[in-house]
């Protein structure tokens, strides 16, 4: 595997390899000295065309823990605005002699484009409304921390699936494990996934009934002005996760959120801070998973 641009490109075996490698790195991260020399001398560029704090921080720290040299190349908008083509940007960066390009871009398909035009390993850190593969992997890793298997697990994904790259990568990932995926939200925010075994629910009460995992998605107010739903107040009242609704899920159900949360909109503070919430653990696990991804792509390159 040269790149990780899409969960659709990898199979169950590869996913399991990433997750088991992440488990080893998680042990490392619990030590006093958290750094390993695994990729000393390798260079990573974090190429971020879209503002990002948490994903970028997570990648950067993961890269440093692997002893790589890290370059940050942040462009607030598309390279086109500067008058440079994306291809030129990629070629410029490649000329530095980098081994990995971690790419975040507001346009779907950019990591695919870059992977075709570079020898470096490309990691998709989120492209448009398309995919966010490392988030899906860290979500799977976090679920497996609490549950024995993903097999047959009832997983409710609630909210703006339409614009969520996190939701999409998760749907593709869970399809490898015959999990029971339920998409919950108004039809304006939930597209059809014909090729995947998913169920659709307009009402959150129906969707989270008996669920093992409740994954809440961030709702962006920008969607409101474009008419996907009337107001955050109405959204919160119809699709927000509160304690009463969470009781409909299994007793040991876990609550997840890719962050950043809108407290009081898609999730109440009571739920977000409850024992069932594993939201902060997701962040911690993200480090180990991203270390594993970069480490494994690196190994493949040398073979």
């Amino acid at each position, binding site marked *: 595997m040269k790149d990780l641009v899409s969960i*659709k490109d990898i199979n169950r075996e590869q996913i399991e390899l990433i997750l088991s490698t992440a488990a080893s790195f998680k042990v490392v991260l619990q030590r006093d000295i958290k750094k390993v020399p695994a990729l000393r001398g390798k260079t990573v560029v974090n190429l971020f065309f879209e503002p990002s704090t948490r994903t970028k921080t997570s990648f950067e720290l993961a890269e440093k823990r692997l002893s790589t040299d890290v370059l940050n190349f942040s462009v607030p908008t*598309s390279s*086109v605005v500067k008058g440079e*083509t*994306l*291809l030129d940007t990629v070629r410029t960066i490649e000329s530095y002699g980098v081994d990995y390009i971690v790419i975040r*871009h507001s*346009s*779907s*398909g*950019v990591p*695919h*484009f870059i992977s075709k035009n570079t020898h470096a390993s490309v990691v998709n850190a989120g*492209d*448009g*409304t*398309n*995919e966010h593969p490392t988030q899906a992997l860290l979500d799977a890793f976090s679920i497996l921390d609490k549950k024995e298997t993903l097999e047959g697990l009832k997983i409710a994904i609630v909210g703006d699936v*339409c614009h969520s*790259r996190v939701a*999409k990568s998760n749907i593709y990932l869970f399809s490898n494990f015959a999990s029971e995926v339920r998409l919950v939200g108004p039809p304006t925010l939930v*597209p*059809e*996934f*014909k*090729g995947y075994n998913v169920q659709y629910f307009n009402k959150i009460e129906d969707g989270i009934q008996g669920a093992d995992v409740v994954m809440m998605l961030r709702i962006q107010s920008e969607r409101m002005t474009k008419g996907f739903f009337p107001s955050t107040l109405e959204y919160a009242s119809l699709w927000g996760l509160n304690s009463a609704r969470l009781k409909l899920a299994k007793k040991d159900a876990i609550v997840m959120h890719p962050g950043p949360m809108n407290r009081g909109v898609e999730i109440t503070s009571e739920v977000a801070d409850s024992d069932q919430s594993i939201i902060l653990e997701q962040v911690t696990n993200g480090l180990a998973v991203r270390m594993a991804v970069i480490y494994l792509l690196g190994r493949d390159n040398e073979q």
Partner: protein
Amino acid sequence: MSNKIVIRDCRIVDVSQDIDSSGDIIIENNKVLDLVVHKPGLKPDYADFEVVEASGFMAMPGFIDIHTHLREPGFEHKETIATGTLAAIKGGFTSVCPMPNTNPVNDNPTVTTFIIKRAMKRGSCNVYPIGAITKGQNGEELAEMGMMLEAGCVAFSDDGKPVMNALVMKRALEYSKVFGVPLISHCEDMSLTAMGVMNEGYLATLLGLEGIPRSSEELIVSRDIMLAGYAGARLHIAHVSTRGSVDIIRRAKASGVQVTAETCPHYFTITEDAVKGYNTDAKVNPPLRCAEDIEAIKEGLRDGTIDVIATDHAPHHADEKVLEFDRAPSGISGLETALSLSLRLVDEGVLTYSDLCKKISYEPSKIFGIGKGTLKKGACADITIIDTKKEFIVSKSKLLSKGKNTPFEGMNLMGMPVAVVVKGKYINVLEL
């Protein structure tokens, strides 16, 4: 070459005279002097004439592309009148109608005159410009249709920027009745298209790209048909891409509305699947649709609902297509593949050669009142000569257009033009 030419022993297909038989085409002083249909034992003597042996080839009245973008003035890095018309004859088109979305927009007789003069000086084929419906294609005030017609325009369109205000469109249709020329509608409801970049549906979801629903096209097809019917004006629907549009146009024709329609080779050849891998060469507006749409479009071509095959030749510079999918411009460079792709319809039994002649030459001329599309005695000698059996592989590097943006790269096709006659001038296009 002399001004006396005989194209000898070819299969002549001319729907205007209901001819499909082998014979000779005699050209003198830029006009068709006569057609000699072969009879057994008759071997005419053509002393004084330059004879072009064309046995095994087919000749039709010169093709007319009623939907072309030549990009000049203003976007000469994408295409010029010189390169665009060269690509046209390479593709068998002896006449093209360039859309007005140049810079400045062809919304006044000065720009029209510039295009026509430049085409006379540097062009390889006839150029009949299409003027804008509204000033600056802004959909607000009517452009000077009458004066543009005098300058040489043949129809009007705000192509690419549909007239969203229904009242403006109604007035434009009413006003166009003075001249009896059609308004061409690029049918798209911009509020539904929004940020869309490909066909709306499951594939768009899988690729994380914003979709353009079929209803975006069909709403304006319906609207403009209603307005044209009410005004009693002529309407031509550009680049039909959906099954629904075909149905709406079919019903409108049956009810007597003066509506005609065109589609383009990409809409009856490839589906949205061509977008997979974020292939910007397959980004086009309206977007590539699905198999069921292709079937409906073929049926529309077969039953006459769709009158014309046009190219919507939309060349872009390579640098502009090597971009993020949602930022790359829409458009396919189509002049040089249109014939070969259309010949597939003959192969499949959707069209006969006579039907093809009708869709790509006779009807375009008739709808726009160009006075061509025929090989009748005295007609302007515009002829396209085709080798229907010649096989080739589409290659960007071989395109004469500056726009190399074709989704058909690497495709095996059969049939290509070998020569054209433009106003009596014989050009071997294989040597271009």
